[in-house]
């Protein structure tokens, strides 16, 4: 089975870093030295497990996660990367950074406190960013005396909310990361609980292969001189291409044939999704960075106006008419915000404001963007790389989103 990258999200202090520490410790993945230190600290230091990923002095002294971190471990079945994220609202940019690197999510909810604002915002972002494999851990069951009733109440509440944002959780598991209950080892303190452990639920996650037709999309990174010829370097992000075929590069609609496909110094017959290759083309002259190569009858839509669901993660609000730059694939295009159609409340899912003048830090919205020249886009569920983008303002990334149409 392939790798699985799981982002661990949820409200401040609900136990994200502690669950990661527990997973690493109980699977025997920690270096001996670190494990020894933990054992020595024992019950006297409840923050010890969280400190495995919270490695900055500020994080350890303040007992919170400031920036996202990643930890890697293996089971007999596959490689896992756990992506820790901060739960504080002011560090949302770091949470989003971690989430965009994930294929699956673990949403952590405190059994005593229940879902709180960041639980909802994180869940909304997970859904918006297209992560479908979601597990919910109801943590700190020790604080509610491992009570069956409390678990079922929360479980129903959260499943109901997730359903409204289009997420069907694969499992909702009661755990106590601090006490080690039901994370990797089954717990005897919840005799009512017949669910798999969190680790078992993770092992059961299967990334859904995209079904159906995958169009060829070759993202041009740059032309590069190779032995007196101009090679075009880039990545096949979807579908496949082969020697001898005709490709069209958009925007610009330049049609030419692939003379050869190079993987390093080696000539190969074809290249498929995920591969970074070099192409020798019959006529490479007009091809430049940002263009997208595709089959002639199946090019992406090139448009200079699109609607999107976005998140804004900069302290300076985004306002209508702001000049921005859109990064999508290897494309980079100047433009402006035409409309902030709806600012959404991630808890009630209702519009807080329609036709808003501005979008503040940590808010999510539906907006309309107009660009100065056409950008190649695809539906995010067909070609994710051309269905999502980053928004730069004054040369800095301030937000991002997923194209609606």
């Amino acid at each position, binding site marked *: 089975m*392939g*790798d699985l990258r799981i982002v661990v999200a949820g409200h401040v202090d609900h136990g994200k870093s502690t669950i990661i520490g527990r997973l690493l410790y109980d699977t*025997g993945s*920690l*270096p*001996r*030295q*670190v*494990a020894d230190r933990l054992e020595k600290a024992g019950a006297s230091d409840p923050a010890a497990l969280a400190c*495995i*990923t919270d*490695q*900055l*002095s*500020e994080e350890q002294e303040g007992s919170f996660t*400031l*920036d*996202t*971190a*990643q*930890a*890697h471990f293996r089971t007999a079945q596959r*490689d896992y*990367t756990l992506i820790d994220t901060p739960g504080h609202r002011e560090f949302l*940019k*770091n949470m*989003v*950074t971690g989430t*965009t*690197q994930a294929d699956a999510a673990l949403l952590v909810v405190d059994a005593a406190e229940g879902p709180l604002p960041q639980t909802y915002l994180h869940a909304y972002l997970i859904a918006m960013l297209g992560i479908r494999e979601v597990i919910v851990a109801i943590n700190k069951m020790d604080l509610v005396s491992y009570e069956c009733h409390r678990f079922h109440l929360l479980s129903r509440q959260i499943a109901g909310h997730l359903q409204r944002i289009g997420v069907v959780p694969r499992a909702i598991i009661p755990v106590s990361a601090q006490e080690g209950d039901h994370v990797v080892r089954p717990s005897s303190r919840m005799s009512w609980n017949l669910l798999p452990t969190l680790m078992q639920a993770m092992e059961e996650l299967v990334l859904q292969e995209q079904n159906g037709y995958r169009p060829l999309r070759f993202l041009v*990174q*740059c032309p*590069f001189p*190779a032995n007196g010829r101009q*090679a075009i*370097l*880039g*990545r096949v992000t979807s579908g496949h291409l082969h020697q001898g075929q005709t490709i069209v590069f958009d925007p610009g609609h330049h049609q030419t044939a692939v003379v050869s496909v*190079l*993987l*390093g*110094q080696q000539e190969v017959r074809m290249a498929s*999704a*995920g*591969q*970074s290759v070099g192409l020798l083309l019959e006529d490479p002259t007009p091809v430049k*960075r940002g263009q997208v190569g595709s089959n002639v009858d199946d090019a992406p839509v090139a448009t200079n106006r699109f609607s999107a669901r976005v998140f804004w*993660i900069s302290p300076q609000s985004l306002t209508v008419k702001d000049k921005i730059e859109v*990064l*999508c694939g*290897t494309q980079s295009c100047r433009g402006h915000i035409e409309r902030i159609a709806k600012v959404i409340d991630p808890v009630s899912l209702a519009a807080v404001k329609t036709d808003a003048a501005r979008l503040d830090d940590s808010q999510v919205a539906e907006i309309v963007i107009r660009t100065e020249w056409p950008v190649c886009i695809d539906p995010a569920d067909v070609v994710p*790389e051309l269905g*999502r*983008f*980053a928004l*730069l303002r004054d*040369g*800095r*990334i301030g937000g*991002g989103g997923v194209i609606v149409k």
Partner: protein
Amino acid sequence: MERMEELEHRSIYIIREAYACFQKPAVLWSMGKDSTVCIALCRKAFLGTVPFPVIHIDTRQKFPAMYAFRDKWAKTWGLNLLVAENAAGLAGSVDCSDKLACCTALKTEALKQLIQAQGLDAILLAIRRDEHGVRAKERHFSPRNTDFQWNYHDQPPELWDLFGARADDNTHVRVHPLLDWTELDVWRYVQRENLPVVDLYFAKEGKRYRSIGCAPCCEPVESEATTLEDILHELETTRIGERQGRAQDKEAAYAMQQLRALGYM
């Protein structure tokens, strides 16, 4: 795609993004296993050549085998090798018993001088998240400020594979193509690609180096691994940390954080 192939192709993508988005990039090469893999990935990214300078930060304290390795492979691969030294630091009175001061003077300062002299705007380097908890916090594109510092309090967001982070004028961005790799991945790649490595990594008389740098600050670990297969087997079963033999990591708590905030690799 299997893990190794996915890591390789994503690293190549990152290396090419650095090349396409910056005016004057360069790559650091310490002759260690990670940066040697990074050089191999650069060669693969650019169809057999490395189209930017390759920098060795020389403290004159490296193992003799590392210098021999550098000269041999720089020539074989046709690298544009630049050796960076902090001449004043080497001539002066750096207190080598103070690891933080020594690393900062002989490595960070040497790099700073070279970046300024060459006008470099991006530095590719082969750090990995699993090496150290502080490195686990890094981004693939990580800007440094005008004082050369890493502002880990307020890193820019990095969304998907859209590497939009840029530095202010007169400073540079660190690019980390191997950030997602583990120590085991690096060795598997060395084996798959049949890459050369300094023979200090192989056991002699029951000891080998897991991590190499300046000779006075590296200790070998107990090991019987005399071949690549042995190393892979050892890493699949060991629970000893990779940098156990590195002096920098044994200093006071948060030494790595302080070093890195000042611009250390």
